[in-house]
């Protein structure tokens, strides 16, 4: 193509629109200089189009590309990964705009546009983003249509209309493909960046620092149960176990319980056989950028990419960087680790060499009184109950011998304080114990009969190993504030008013207002359906859904179903397009006349072969003298339409009204 080739105006307009619309969602994630470069490139291209400026020469372009790449490396330290990749893509998109001489260049920009749309879905997957990106897709398509229209076409609206029609016709096909194309697991494992800001529970708990988590109303995950939703006091969503205490902070410790060989499915007898009826449910987890998943105790999962850790949790192979749905069967009555190996017992008896002397003394005293570990648990809980402990999200800060301070002086705290102190007591008395971090309870949405678990449902409790029973869940917080577990954190904080006090606009704060609550739950139901049916449409969900519709499906039937429905849709579309093509073009008035003829024909008043419409109507005047005037008027209308070619919009209506008397 020669330099003289100007991109069609239609195409350029839509290319620029699509480019800026496509990049807008990325701009908050990208450094500010990328935005500025984009604006500059777009402005430059517009000036070129208006023939004020020239496109940059080869030297400037080369310079731009290399400095862009260098700046990305400087900013992110790499060229790979979604963030740096997106920055590169966006920059490339802009630079390509500066060398779009030919149709091929413009086509490359269009292809990049589709890529930008696809990569946006790494970051945003909610319904609004999807709708917005569909809009961007439409703009890119309009640019592509404009590129292939003749340069004589200069109405961007007509181009858009064509693109809209194409997309509208593609959507049913897309739906069929979405439903029927077999979902397979990842071909190779990829990790999205892990350095993004994370919300959710942390793998370190330092009782005495300020509580942060309980104040966020963000969603952690949704759970759809196969049967009814169990009682709130059974809903302990295990996420992590914290096994190591350094005198201030509980952490996961030096022994990594997530790593192979335990991660491998069925790799040991520690998992045990499921006992009793399984409780089946599906969790739709929001991104956490962590590998751990949440489930009720003794969980099994058949979802690809999910394995088990040594402490009976579910772990994903790669971090959850986008919404992730997994199916779980929980065996609530199954004991965990009926026989505790010595090395694991050592891990769960670890304590700092020194510190907290009063707590250690209390543990020895309680152990001596109790005699057996299970009695010790009871005595310890009774000890808490008998003292003036209170539940608060605004505990005083602690330092030094934190457990001593908490148990004997401040006596105000929330779940991690209680769980931490309890595990410390147990370990001091020689009973293996650990902190479990996760979520407790959840909000039931009556609309979809599913459970919403928010960040403010985050909780920490203890697990104690008792011979013969395995790990037993003990929640010391319930002793102090039973309503925390029975009714949720809002009730537990009713007197204090600290529930979501930092987010006055969070809808969850207004649960007492019925309509706000209903609106919020309704909206969430939409999101739930979106997560379950669209984002969480994986192999298992697909086979379950299709089995419900078509009975058992294997790959062969699935392929057949897909081929048949695609063929049907395309056939219908082809029929419509070509039928529309073969329709002879007739004016509406002539069609109206034909309709009249069909009505008159049975009475022998139809037109003679070869008779002109007006002649026919005038001949009828003799047979229907009562209608003579209207027949004459109708004939005049037809004459005018056929021979004068005037398009009178009211003519059809008038013709119909006149013909009614016949």
């Amino acid at each position, binding site marked *: 193509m020669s330099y003289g080739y100007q991109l069609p105006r239609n195409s350029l307009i839509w290319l620029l629109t699509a480019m800026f619309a496509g990049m807008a969602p990325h701009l908050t994630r990208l450094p500010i200089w990328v935005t500025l470069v984009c604006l500059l490139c777009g402005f430059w291209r517009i000036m070129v189009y208006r023939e004020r400026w020239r496109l940059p020469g080869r030297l400037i372009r080369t310079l731009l590309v290399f400095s862009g790449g260098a700046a990305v490396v400087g900013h992110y330290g790499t060229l790979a990964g979604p963030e740096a990749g997106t920055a590169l893509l966006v920059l490339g998109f802009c630079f390509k705009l500066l060398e779009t001489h030919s*149709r*091929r260049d413009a*086509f490359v920009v269009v*292809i990049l546009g*589709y*890529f930008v*749309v*696809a990569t946006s*879905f*790494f970051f945003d*997957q909610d319904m609004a983003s999807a709708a917005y*990106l569909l809009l961007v*897709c439409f703009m890119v*398509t309009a640019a*592509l*249509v404009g*590129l*292939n*229209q*003749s*340069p*004589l*076409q200069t109405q961007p609206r007509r181009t858009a209309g*064509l693109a809209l029609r*194409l*997309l509208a016709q*593609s*959507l049913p*096909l*897309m739906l069929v*493909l*979405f439903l029927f*194309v077999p*979902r*397979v*697991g*990842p*071909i*190779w*494992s990829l990790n*999205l960046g892990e350095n993004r800001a994370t919300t959710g529970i942390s793998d370190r708990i330092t009782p005495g620092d300020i509580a942060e988590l309980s104040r966020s109303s963000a969603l952690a995950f949704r759970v759809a149960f196969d049967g009814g939703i169990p009682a709130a006091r059974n809903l302990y969503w295990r996420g992590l176990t914290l096994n190591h205490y350094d005198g201030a902070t509980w952490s996961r410790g030096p022994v990594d319980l997530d790593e192979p060989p335990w991660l491998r499915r069925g790799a040991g007898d520690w998992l045990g056989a499921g006992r009793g009826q399984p409780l089946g449910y599906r969790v739709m987890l929001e991104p956490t950028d962590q590998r751990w998943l949440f489930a009720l105790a003794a969980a099994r999962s058949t979802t690809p*990419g999910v394995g088990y850790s040594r402490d009976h949790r579910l772990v994903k192979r790669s971090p959850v960087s*986008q919404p992730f749905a997994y199916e779980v069967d929980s065996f609530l009555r199954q004991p965990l680790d009926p026989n505790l190996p010595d090395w694991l017992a050592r891990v769960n008896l670890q304590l700092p060499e020194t510190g907290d002397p009063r707590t250690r003394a209390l543990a020895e005293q309680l152990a001596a009184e109790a005699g057996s570990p299970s009695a010790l648990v009871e005595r310890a809980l009774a000890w808490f109950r008998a003292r003036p402990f209170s539940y608060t999200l605004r505990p005083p800060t602690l330092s030094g011998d934190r457990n001593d301070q908490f148990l004997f002086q401040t006596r105000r705290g929330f779940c991690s304080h209680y769980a931490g102190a309890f595990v410390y007591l147990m370990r001091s008395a020689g009973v293996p114990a650990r902190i479990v971090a996760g979520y407790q309870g959840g909000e039931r949405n009556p609309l979809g009969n599913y459970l919403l678990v928010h960040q403010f449902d985050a909780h920490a409790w203890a697990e104690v190993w008792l011979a013969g029973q395995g790990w037993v869940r003990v929640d010391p917080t319930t002793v102090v504030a039973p309503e925390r577990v029975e009714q949720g954190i809002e009730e537990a904080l009713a007197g204090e008013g600290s529930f979501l006090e930092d987010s006055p606009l969070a809808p969850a704060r207004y649960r007492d207002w019925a309509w706000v609550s209903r609106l919020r739950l309704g909206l969430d139901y939409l999101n739930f359906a979106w997560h379950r049916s*669209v*984002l*969480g*449409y*994986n192999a298992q969900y697909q086979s379950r859904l299709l089995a419900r519709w078509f009975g058992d499906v294997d790959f062969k039937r699935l392929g057949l179903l897909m081929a048949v429905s*695609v063929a049907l849709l*395309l056939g219908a*579309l*082809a029929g419509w*397009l*070509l039928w*529309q*093509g*073969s*329709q*002879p*073009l007739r004016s509406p008035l002539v069609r109206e006349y034909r309709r009249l003829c069909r009505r008159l024909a049975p009475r022998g008043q139809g037109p003679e072969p070869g008779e002109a419409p007006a002649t026919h109507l005038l001949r009828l005047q003799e047979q229907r003298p009562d209608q003579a005037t209207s027949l004459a008027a109708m004939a005049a209308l037809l004459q005018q339409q056929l021979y004068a070619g005037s398009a009178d919009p009211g003519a059809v209506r008038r013709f119909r009204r006149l013909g009614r008397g016949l």
Partner: protein
Amino acid sequence: MAASVRSWWSGHFDAWLRRRAPRRRALTLNQRRIFILPTRHGVYFLLTLGAIFVGGINYGNSLILATAFLLVSLFLVSILHTYANLAGLRVAAGRSEPAFAGDEAAFELILSSFRRRPHESLYLHWGQAPARVVDRVAEAPVAVRMLLPVTRRGRFRPPRLKLETVFPLGLLRAWSWLELDMACLVYPKPEACTLPRRPDSRGEEGEVRRHDGSDDFDGLRRYQTGDNPRHLAWKQYARSGELHAKAFVGHETHELWLEWEAFAGQGVETRLARLCYWVLKLSERGRSFGLRLPGETLAPDSGAAHERRCLQMLALYGEKP
């Protein structure tokens, strides 16, 4: 070797195409005539959506998969649209004008449609003529004039016409080969030379006065249909109300004959080219002349019709009727 294979192939392809679509004066494009295949852009598009699909699978991202499915659907739908942009198009042979060898012959095509929706962005490729874009062909016939370079004297049949479109997305190309029953005459390329005198020339004394020349004014005569409007006597018309034409006489040495034999010793095409030059020259001067070719003779005459007859005789000399 490769060239012979190619010529063998193109010969067979032509024969196949001719069987499939014989020459006609007018035809409507349908599935028998329309071919459709992805363009290079279409292949790139498919590769891109393949990459997006693999990304969607690998990251387990339903929406990225949905994007890939949307693009596949767009591709499939555009197959139908590209096809429908040609289907139902009616192409008819229009007028054609003769030309001199080395010039361009003008052919007219008439495009129309039965469809409600117009056919957009149609490309016409015809022999060596530069490609033409025709936009929005609807019911009303659109006449397209194309200039085809002609090199050889004789009857020229234009090669197959290729009608193609990539509308609306440029991902697929639909095209059709049309053999329209069209032809035009290609006159020899005129070659300037002196008019050789025949040895039996009688010189000036044999001069006869002939009417219908254009050299000298000879008087007025009554108007007849077909008289040159430039020769009408408007002054007399204004005076008398009767239309008269000015009559001129041409001076001619004798009955002028353009003779094949006069160019003895030259090749066939050279003779024809020189004869052609003199046919044009003499007609321009309004002279009356006859043309004698081996086996064919045109009696002396003058005027545009005579010129055309002469040129046609020259063009078709030696060709089978």
